[in-house]
Structures are given as C-alpha cells and as structure tokens.
C-alpha cells in the first residue's frame, strides 16, 4: 500500500484532461457556447443602431463596443454551465461513482472539474476576444496581459458557481430552470447589457453581484482604468473581488463533495 493514501494532482490532471478530450469530441458544445453569445451580441448590438446611447457610456463608444465585454462574460458563463452540467450526466451514467470510490482527495475532484471548465471557458472567450478590433474594441499586448488572467479567474469562479448548483442535482432539467431564473439575471445585472444608472435600484444589485466584478474586470482589461466608465470599479479592485469569489466557490465545492460523497 502506498504511503500517500489519497492522491491530489495526478487525479486532478487526469480529470482535467478528460474534460478537454471530451469537449473536443463534442463539436456541438463549441457551437452552443460560442454561437449563442455571438448571436446575442450581433442582434442586440446592431439592432439598437449606431446612434444608440445609454447614460454612463462614453460618447465615442458604439453600443456594439460597449456590449462586447459583456458578450465575452456570457461566453464564459455558458461554457462554465455546459461543463458543469456534465457532472449531472456523470452522476447518472456512472462515471462519477468510479471517481468517488477511488482514493482521491475531494480537492482533486473539484480541482479537475474547475480547471477543465476554466480552460474551456477562458480558451473560447479568448478566441472571440481576438476579434475585438472588428467591434471597435482595443486589443494589444497590454490588453492581453490584463485580459488573460481576468478570463481565467472569472471563468474559474463561474465554473464554481455551476458546480455548486450541479453537484446536488440529479436532473439536467433542474439545472436549466436554475440557469434561467438565477444565472442569466446575474449576468444581465452585471453591467454587461447596460451600465447601472447612478440612481436606479440596479446599482445595488450590481454592487452585490459577483458576476458584475467579472464583467468589470473584462471591461477594464480592454479599456484600462483611464477611460471614464461610470460606476465600473478599477481593474485591480474587480480582480481582487473575482479572485475572492473564485476561492470561496472552490472551498464551498470541496466542502460539498466532502459532505455528500454518495451517488444518489
């Protein structure tokens, strides 16, 4: 018998690689996670017309450009959701029980899933970000240096949110319901679609919404802190909140796996 009774990094790495391999074999997942937000962006962004202005938007910014960071966060959110929904399938089909009876630390199960989901989310979001100049959104090395960590941290946190919802569920229908009434509003009230008005109730919702700091981090990654964006926190502050959120999600997920390591 080996000295190390439970294993951490090797199982986490194996579970991470499995996520990637599975994803690459399911082409429709790429389409689902990428196409939906892009269609949203094009239809809503161009539908309102070039002259459309919202209070709080800089004067020289089109709505297509304003909405672009929000679209990137939606891609992160969708990919994170699709990758955590597989927990429910794994539980139903049986793969998960094979993991749970192995001498694997709960941290490894969570880490493998989080890292896998984060890689897919950040990777796809980054791919779309490369098209930012087409939307009139700046992109250079300085932007990328801020953007890549932001995509990773925000992706990690959103996968965590999906994990906490998916772990106790045993049907994907339940997940879709929660996604519609909980996750989508979180995104809509994140400053992705519109800046929160200084005197509206939405201001408080945005201030308390962890996803809003993700959207802010991505927005500030593109524009830096110099551009005046009313009610959007600085890059550093948005990143700190996002890192804290990701850490809390991780700890809660580990606690949940430790507590309910059963298959039904």
């Amino acid at each position, binding site marked *: 018998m080996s000295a190390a*009774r439970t*294993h951490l990094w090797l*199982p986490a790495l194996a579970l991470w690689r499995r996520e990637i*391999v599975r994803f690459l074999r399911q082409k429709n997942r790429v389409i689902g996670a990428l196409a939906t937000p892009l269609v949203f962006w094009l239809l809503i962004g161009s539908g309102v017309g070039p002259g459309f202005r919202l209070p709080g938007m800089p004067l020289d910014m089109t709505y297509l450009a304003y909405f672009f960071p929000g679209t990137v966060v939606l891609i992160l959110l969708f990919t994170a959701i699709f990758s955590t929904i597989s927990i429910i399938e794994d539980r139903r089909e*049986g*793969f998960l029980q094979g993991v749970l009876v192995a*001498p694997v630390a709960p941290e490894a199960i969570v880490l493998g899933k989080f890292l896998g989901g984060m890689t897919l989310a950040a990777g796809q979001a980054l791919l779309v970000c490369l098209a930012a100049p087409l939307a009139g959104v700046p992109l250079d090395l300085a932007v990328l240096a801020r953007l890549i960590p932001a995509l990773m941290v925000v992706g990690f946190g959103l996968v965590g949110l999906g994990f906490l919802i998916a772990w106790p569920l045993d049907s994907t229908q339940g997940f879709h319901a929660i996604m519609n009434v909980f996750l989508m509003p979180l995104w809509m009230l994140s400053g992705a679609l519109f800046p929160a008005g200084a005197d509206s109730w939405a201001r408080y919702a945005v201030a308390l919404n962890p996803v809003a700091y993700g959207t802010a981090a991505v927005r500030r990654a593109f524009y830096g802190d110099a551009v005046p964006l009313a009610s959007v926190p600085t890059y550093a502050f948005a990143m700190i909140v996002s890192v804290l959120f990701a850490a809390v999600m991780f700890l809660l997920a580990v606690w949940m796996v430790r507590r309910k*390591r059963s298959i039904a």
Partner: protein
Amino acid sequence: MSHPVQTTDLCRSFGARVALDHVSFGVREGEIFGLLGPNGGGKTTLFRILGTLLSPSGGSARICGHDVVADPAGVRSSIGVVFQSPSLDPQLTVAENLRYGGNLYGLRGPDLENRWREMASALRVEDRAGDLVKNLSGGLQRRVEIAKSLLPRPRVLLLDEPSTGLDPVARVDLWAILEQLRGKFGITTVITTHLMDEAERCGRVAILHRGKMLACETPDALRATIGADVLTLVCKRPDAVAEQLQAKFGWTAVVRDDAVRLEIPKAHAEVARIVEAFPGEILSVTAGRPTLEDVFVRMTGERLGDPFFEETGKKKKK
C-alpha cells in the same frame, strides 16, 4: 486470521424503511462470495456501504482492516469496484479510460502503461484499446470495467450485478474471467446477484431478504438444508393434482408456474407410484437435487425472480 471483508451487525435505514438489519458475515481470503437476494432485498445498500458510498446507520464494516466510516481512504485503496451501470466514459477510448482510471489511484508512467496493457490483455480487450467505449458491446464494456477496477491490484473486488445487460455467452465468459482472476491474483471477490446460476458458482452465498441475512453457507450446504429431493410434475390440472397428493400420500405440494412441486426424500423411487396414481394426467416428471431457488423459496416463501421485484428494481434505477 482476519477476514478481508468483515461486517458486524451492519444496519442501514432510509427513514422508516430498514434496508439492512444487523447483517454480519466474513469473507475469506481468495473466496468468491455471493450476496443473493431479490432486488430491494438490501444487496445494493450493502454493496454501497462496502464501497464507501453510503454510511451505515449502525454496526460496522471493515475491508482489509480499514473501517468504512473511520478510514474510507484506506478502504478505497484496497478495493476495486465494478458497478451495475458502467463507470466508463463512453466518449473516451478504452485506453484513455484505463489510463485516467489508473491516474485516480496514483498510477503513472511506464508502470501504468504496463499495468493497463497487462489487464487489457487478461480481459481480452487489448485489440480494442483505440476504440471509443460507446462503440463496444455490453459484454466488452463490462470487461473493460473489470480491467479498470483491477489496475491498482486491489485485494478485494466488489461487483454489483455484473451480468446485468449481458447476453448468455458474455455471462459465461464473465464467470470464466472471474475464476481466472481468482486463480491468477488470489483476489477476494464479493458479488451481488439475483440469479441462481450465478450464486451456484460462488464459494459461499449469503441470502439477503428484506434487509436480513437468512443464511451464509456454501451452495451445497444450503441445498442440504432442504434434506430432500425436489420433484416437479407438469400436469393438465396442477391444482387438482396437488390437492390429491396431499390427500392420498400426505405430501405438501405447491403449484408454481403451472407445475406441481414437492420436496420428498428419494423422489426417484416414488416417480412410478405418482404417475400411476394420476393416469393420463401427468405430462412430464423431473426429479432432482434442490436448487438455491428452492432454498430461497423455503426460507422466504417468495421467489427470487418474481416479476414484481424485477420491475421495481428497474424502475428505481431509471
């Protein structure tokens, strides 16, 4: 010497329903041990407790000296588990499933490569290593599953209804493999089943019914508890024949599946007498040693393969 698998007064309830009621048994080193009972009898609950996926409400269970509650990690590194619904990822190839499965047990590098190839070859799936699992037959998937469970060289192998969904050929195959593994690696095997012919192949069998363990013996010893032979008469009017057997000979006969069954000593000697007593009535006569099915019926008054149990068992899994 201590038993590799030992339960003491193991209990488990789900609300008011008692799924396991003070179950105690010990499995010997290298033995194939059967847990026999209808679906809903408590087998799967017991299996999940041994597999550390469910905690007992009372009593204890130890595997290779590790308590399932106090030291689940120790249990997990001593067991290989084969589930009823395969724990393979259908989107991955056989080789990927085996590699990632090995990684979960801390196996890596050349050691892992050697082990999975050895197991794939022992279970005769090495030529399918590059195929996606979803493209394999049920029997092949089961073999890959067993190969995966054996990668860490567990001392105890737990199998939950391993022949579910297998055709008769694949089932015979599965048992040949289990026997082989026992011979080659000396693995202690605990297998749950509701099938008589599978139970007959086990070294010892524990009969579980409504959460209670009714017996724990070798198949021969279980059969010996009946102490008689079993006679099965296929006849035109089974109810009338059963009644008259009681009246004329004083034997208790039961009607099951349109056939009359009775347990009497030296049944073969009585055959002529019985056939002559019912001219033109009896179509066929079978005399034989009692089966485990007979033992189960005697102990519980119910049949193992009752459709009722089959149905509810399947519904629960969906």
